[in-house]
């Protein structure tokens, strides 16, 4: 049997080369191979013959590992296994595409800035429309990259056009709160519009929705990195040029807006073409920050439970709370998208549940205070928007807590947890759209 064992060993080493097949899968395949060989030798074949036939029956290892790769939904595997040299070269040559779209966005924002006379005069028009000068280019970039058909490309344009018409036709009262609410919610709405070209027009696919969540997280990481680098670059440039008497303000006026918008598309291109880099980094980041945020949330819950929320509560604190809840949700969502769904519950899942439950408790406290204020002082655009956001978050967090408890106790699968989040995803976009489209007329644009 010595020679046979060597043969099997070599075969297994070959199987394990595929990144999509882990040690246990390889062990399972080897057990299969050995069973088959045993049956064939029992039927009268020699060990060598049996080995050859058994290997052939298992099939081409490339095909098998590709099939495994498809199953391990983490894109990493798909990328590693299915990309061959040709694809690699293709992504390299596509940087030009990204640069063109980034430059177009950068120029557009400058034109808009000059038209608004910013920063000479305060312009709420520019503030409201800023995302409309940037995100359509990102949509266009994806439409092109995904090779969308004419019909799908046109469908991508429609929501942008509607948004542009709606927010510019509404007669906002100057300095009112609906104006600011729209400015804050429109980027969210448009980001969800990007999902359409990103997912090649297949909005129903839960797997693609998860990909979009993953993209959002990775894009954010790249964007922050670029912003940090850009900030250092700008500051140093200013410091170096100052002694020469050059107008430093000018650099900020021209370089900053263009950089901020161009980076939106460059970051998207980086996520698309340098996926492997960020995929190695992102799970580590969630692993570090999930426990930290969980700890912070627990402290917040304990402190506010002791001191009571009512006294300290004002509009700014409410904003901070909402921002924090959104960040926690983002972290949880990204953590889910980056996790290998086939592994059984681990410590990170428990910590995530702790974070979700504490966020839920905080959200309930905030909601209580908010309802009391609304009962006392009535509805305003700000209070309505905040109330809606908190309810949307509450339902999501409650559902997530429930499903992950069931997952941790072995009554449900991780798949269900993914499903809950991907099913819920459109509701965030719809709520943001409600604030942009329905809320202003409801409060007569104050």
């Amino acid at each position: 049997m010595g020679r046979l064992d060597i043969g099997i060993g070599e075969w297994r080493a070959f199987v394990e080369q595929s990144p999509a097949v882990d040690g246990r899968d390889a062990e399972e395949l080897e057990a299969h191979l050995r069973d088959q060989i045993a049956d064939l030798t029992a039927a009268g074949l020699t060990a060598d013959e049996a080995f050859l036939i058994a290997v052939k029956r298992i099939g081409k290892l490339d095909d098998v590992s590709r099939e495994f790769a498809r199953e391990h939904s983490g894109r990493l595997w798909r990328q590693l296994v299915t990309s061959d040299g040709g694809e690699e070269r293709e992504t390299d040559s596509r940087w030009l595409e990204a640069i063109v779209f980034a430059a177009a966005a950068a120029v557009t924002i400058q034109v808009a800035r000059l038209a608004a006379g910013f920063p000479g005069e305060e312009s709420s028009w520019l503030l409201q429309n800023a995302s409309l000068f940037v995100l359509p280019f990102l949509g266009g970039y994806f439409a092109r990259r995904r090779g969308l058909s004419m019909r799908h490309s046109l469908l991508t344009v429609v929501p942008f056009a509607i948004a542009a018409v709606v927010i510019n036709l509404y007669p906002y009262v100057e300095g009112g709160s609906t104006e600011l609410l729209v400015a804050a919610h429109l980027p969210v709405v448009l980001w969800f519009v990007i999902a359409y070209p990103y997912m090649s027009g297949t909005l129903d696919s839960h797997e693609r929705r998860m990909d979009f969540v993953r993209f959002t997280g990775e894009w954010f990481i790249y964007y922050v990195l670029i912003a940090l680098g850009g900030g250092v670059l700008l500051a140093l440039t200013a410091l170096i040029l100052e002694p020469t008497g050059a107008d430093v303000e000018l650099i900020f006026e021209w370089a900053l807006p263009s950089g901020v918008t161009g980076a939106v598309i460059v970051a998207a291109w980086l996520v698309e073409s340098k996926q492997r880099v960020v995929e190695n980094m992102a799970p580590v980041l969630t692993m570090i920050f999930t426990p930290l945020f969980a700890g912070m949330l627990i402290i917040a819950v304990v402190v506010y439970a002791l001191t009571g929320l009512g006294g300290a509560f004002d509009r700014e604190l409410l904003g901070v709370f909402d921002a924090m809840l959104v960040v926690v949700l983002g972290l949880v969502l990204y953590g889910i998208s980056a996790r290998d769904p086939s592994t059984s519950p681990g410590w990170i899942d428990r910590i995530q549940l702790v974070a979700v439950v504490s966020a839920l408790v905080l959200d309930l406290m905030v909601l209580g205070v908010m309802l009391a204020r609304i009962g006392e002082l009535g509805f305003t655009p700000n209070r309505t928007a905040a109330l809606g956001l908190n309810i949307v978050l509450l339902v999501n967090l409650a559902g997530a807590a429930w499903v992950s408890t069931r997952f941790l106790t072995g009554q449900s699968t991780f798949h269900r947890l993914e499903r809950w989040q991907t099913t819920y995803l459109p509701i965030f976009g719809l709520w943001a759209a409600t604030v942009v489209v329905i809320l202003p007329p409801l409060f007569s644009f104050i």
Partner: protein
Amino acid sequence: MYLDEDEAKAVVNIDKDLVAASATPLVLAILAEGESYGYAILKRVREISGGELEWTDGMLYPLLHRLHRLGYVTREWRIPPEGRRRRYYAITDEGQAALAEHKRQWLTVARALGDAWGGGDLMPLAFGRA
């Protein structure tokens, strides 16, 4: 009816897509008979289909992975009294429900095909047994 004999003798080369589509209900049905492991599942597939359903053995394992991810099966490493360490799969309640749904769909298709081909009642019966 002379066609039937010809068909029985010829090796029926079943379309790839059809094999792929029937793989999930077949594996679930086999696991509904009792827990099993990869190699035994494949042997059972050959047995049931009289050797006419040709699978590439290796492809079973990614499929089992998928069924596990969807929560249709549980899996566990075990060493039987005699024999080597194997991964055993057992169907869950969700798997049973999925199997029932698959059955319903296949029966509908089979019935429709049977009607279209003129009173071919045999197909639904065959499915009923599987």
